[in-house]
């Protein structure tokens, strides 16, 4: 599924809906990549699809599958995946502003699609009604396409066999680079990434898979210190949401 396959008609209803659906189709492609990675890591078709249906936060799913792929245990896979999932909690207060009139059961249902992309598309709109449409179209749209993509990738993954022959082992880290890019906009973000990369470079060759990623989160502490210091100098140094 490519963005060109998205029906053109809904575009007339506003940029929020269009942006959400185009993004959903694109993320669906990443879902295919996840499906392939999970299957070639040894996960069954049912487990692969269950991950996308129930976990539904891409970076965590990739992290877990990568650790398994590298020969790590289930426990080793859980640590980095859960740590990555914790950032979704920070999106809650942003999304809550779009849905403050909605009932608790409804918000509990909406919580499942609170991810990077849906929060981003919602927050990018100026009007509250557009924020709701942007969040819902990208959140629900991505849920549908992510799961369809996973199913496709997981099915095809059986026949792909050797990831390296297709260069797909380079595709997964490239997805991370794309996910990392927006975080490099701020100085503390760059410090976090640089220190984390240095720690990973030093520890990956000597420690069991999964552990270096946990240790590299020290980079975030360095970023937080840098942000705190610049806050002291410039009082309004608040960047991104």
């Amino acid at each position, binding site marked *: 599924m490519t963005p060109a396959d998205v029906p053109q008609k809904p575009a007339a209803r506003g940029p929020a809906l269009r942006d959400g659906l185009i993004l959903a189709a694109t993320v669906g492609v990443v879902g295919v990549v996840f499906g392939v990675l999970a299957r070639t890591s040894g996960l069954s078709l049912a487990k692969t699809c269950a991950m996308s249906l129930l976990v539904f936060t891409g970076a965590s799913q990739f992290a877990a599958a990568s650790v398994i792929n590298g020969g790590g245990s289930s426990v080793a896979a859980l640590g*980095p995946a859960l740590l990555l999932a914790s950032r979704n909690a920070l999106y809650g207060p942003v999304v809550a502003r779009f849905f403050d009139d909605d009932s608790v059961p409804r918000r509990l249902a909406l919580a499942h699609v609170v991810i990077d992309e849906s929060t981003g598309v919602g927050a990018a709109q100026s009007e509250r009604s557009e924020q709701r449409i942007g969040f819902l179209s990208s959140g629900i749209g991505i849920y549908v396409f992510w799961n369809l993509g996973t199913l496709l990738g997981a099915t095809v993954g059986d026949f792909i066999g050797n990831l390296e022959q297709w260069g797909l082992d380079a595709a997964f880290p490239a997805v991370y680079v794309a996910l990392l890019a927006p975080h490099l906009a701020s100085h503390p973000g760059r410090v976090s990434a640089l220190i984390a990369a240095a720690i990973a470079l030093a520890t990956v060759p000597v420690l069991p898979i999964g552990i270096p990623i946990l240790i590299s989160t*020290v980079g975030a502490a360095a970023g937080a210190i840098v942000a705190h210091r610049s806050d002291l100098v410039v009082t309004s140094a608040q960047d991104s949401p």
Partner: protein
Amino acid sequence: MSWWAIIALAAGSYGFKAFGLLGLSRVELRGPLADLVRFLPAAMFAGLIVQNVLADGTSEIVVTRALGVAAGGLAVWAKAPLLVVILVAAGVAAGTRAIL
């Protein structure tokens, strides 16, 4: 990955999302902890990139993988769509492997 690990990951992931939407939105998360969580993705993605690039394989595989990821990084820098980034990274890695 065992079923219980998948269930635990699913419960934890949903727990974070629901806690953020219904609990955290009532209190203002400020200070060093908020900064720490804010920069966690930057650190973890950087760590994941390094770990995945250095992952198992002959030196030839690792070098061609790194070339593919670097090409993908250039595509990201050029603001190419995600699909293009994936195709460039995979294409360069597979292509250099075929040549070497």
